[in-house]
């Protein structure tokens, strides 16, 4: 709750900063609120981990908490690294949205962890995926926002509009690759198969392919920003289907990767 308030406060401060002439002061206040929100979120995850006695990474609700915390944290860190605050307000809003979703639909978390998940690969696999999802989510959010803004203002897009989302993809896609490979190593140890085209694996492959396609198109067509930004939106839609949508698909019953308590 505190983190949500801090992130919303940070969003407001970034908004005031955009309108104000004394930019640096408001931006610093916003940075501080964003960082405090991230600290609160990290403390929440640490408390959950401690109380449950296992990594809080098993169910969709638990991974949503990680995502809610990772997006603003990563936004702040990469913003500092890339010397830009352009994504910070969107990162705060996304974090606040995911956290609010969890607050409105609290999930009963139990302390059990089924045998398949008791592996040294569990934490690196899911955490790397969450960080990758955060970078790619931010990238697509900025892409979508840029597309909508250009349509609204009837203003032509410039190739430089793709720079920031593209830089986020160059962080997110390697991590997505690592997550995919960690999952394959783990599956071999647990079940004897590194790849079985299970529905969840298939959608992870599709998500990876979608971003690979973007990367290759971008290499050849860097002067077509609308195409690049559009592909990023498609990539994020695939990612969301992989994360949440698989459970609702006709193939869901064939998946062994459903760990939400029935």
């Amino acid at each position, binding site marked *: 709750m505190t983190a949500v308030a801090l992130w919303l406060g940070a969003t407001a401060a970034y908004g005031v900063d955009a309108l104000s002439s004394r930019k640096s002061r408001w931006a610093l206040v916003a940075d501080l609120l964003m960082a405090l929100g991230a600290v609160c979120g990290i403390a929440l995850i640490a408390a959950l981990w401690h109380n449950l006695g296992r990594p809080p990474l098993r169910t969709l609700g638990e991974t949503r908490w990680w995502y809610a915390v990772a997006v603003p944290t990563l936004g702040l860190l990469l913003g500092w*690294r890339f010397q830009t605050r352009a994504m910070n307000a969107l990162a705060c809003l996304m974090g606040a949205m995911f956290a609010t979703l969890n607050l409105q639909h609290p999930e009963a978390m*139990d*302390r*059990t962890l089924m045998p398949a998940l008791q592996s040294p690969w569990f934490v690196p696999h899911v955490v790397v995926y969450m960080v990758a999802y955060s970078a790619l989510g931010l990238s697509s959010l900025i892409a979508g926002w840029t597309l909508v803004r250009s349509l609204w203002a009837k203003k032509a897009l410039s190739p430089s509009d793709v720079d920031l989302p593209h830089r986020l993809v160059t962080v997110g896609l390697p991590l997505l*690759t690592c997550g995919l490979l960690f999952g394959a190593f783990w599956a071999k*140890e647990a079940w004897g198969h590194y790849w079985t085209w299970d529905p969840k694996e298939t959608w992870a492959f599709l998500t990876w392919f979608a971003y690979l*396609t973007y990367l290759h*198109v971008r290499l050849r067509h860097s002067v077509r920003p609308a195409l690049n930004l559009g592909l990023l939106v498609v990539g994020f839609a695939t990612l969301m289907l992989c994360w949440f949508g698989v459970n609702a*698909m*006709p193939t869901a019953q064939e998946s062994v990767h459903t760990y939400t308590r029935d």
Partner: protein
Amino acid sequence: MASSAVRSGFWDGPLGYAQAWVVAFASLVVGLGFHFAIGYDSPAGMGAVLWMAWALLASMLVIGRAMRTSQVVQWITGIPFAVASTSLVGAIALVGGVVPQSVVQGWGAPSVWSAWPFLMALFPMLANLLGSIGKRSWPLNYSNVLYILSHAGLAVAIVGGAVSGATLERKTMTLFEGQPSQLAEDAQHRQTKMPFTLTLREFRMDTFPPTLAIARRDASAPDGAHVVNGSSFLKAGALERIDGYKVEVLEFLPKAASVGSRWISVPWKTASPAARVRATAPDGERFEGWVSCGGVESSGAALELGPDVALAMPRPRPRKFQSSVDVDHGGTRRSVVVEVNGKATVGGYDLYQLDYDVAMGAASPYSVIEVVRDRGLPVVYLGMAMMLAGATLHLWHGIGGRK
């Protein structure tokens, strides 16, 4: 005449996306042709086609390098070809991600992933991948090494996967306690003799301590009841609030059997847990009684809290499945433990805990062990390691480590 001129112009001009899409779809059409002409019942026919395809693909490594200045090779190893061919593979994978395999089997293919259209759609994608690796194989500067690590890593992993698919041995051995067995069964129920003997000493299934749940009759819920699970493991004195009810555990028996209206502690392996609980409703009304999930010997018990509400104990969740097995191999005997996420290796075969008698739970008289030998695995792991190295370097670039 006019049509011929158009077709000629289409292939003579600069080759780009349109031509790449035509090739990609042609591979799909060829795949559909094989689906109907060769089918899946002739391993010799399938093998011949796949060996030819692999030979052609391997030659792309050399062609990509030796003829890298040719316009056609530039096109095959270029981005439009990559985008078209990977998009087609992605589109077929999308079918596999949405359509249940049982439906695909109704179309005559064992699965999307071994269907001819998918295998043939992979062909242009791999031609592009291998040709581009050949093209970028020299000089070994930083940029090319980075390219090779990620692209050749993927290619090596796919080749390893193909070797795995062709040579994989995957069988199951059903072991009964104290009875040595050398027989393994494949998916077609053909039995073979393994070069080792396994004897199950003990199958163990540990569970987490049970929890409680409030169930409300709800016709709209999938199982006819809306269930709110508690999160605390049961122990005497535990106190928890579930769905508005304050629930206190007065007595907890990890292994119990019912005697009339009460439960007593018993030493049986298959006995179920039971707890005497007190529940206080939001309006202050109190209920007291026994709850148990039941098991092989006893049926369960729930505490009625109203006409449509009850306090129940869901079955405890499994914590560990474990088989202690004696292995006789090459004149020596040793003991191994096989569990989920904890394989054992015997004579080049990996042993995995696969199944047990679910109805009997911890008292299962048998354990099913999966026996796997995967000769392509080292190649797959080499490819994955290269991909990991490539991804790490790309990440370093991404965060600005090297411009």
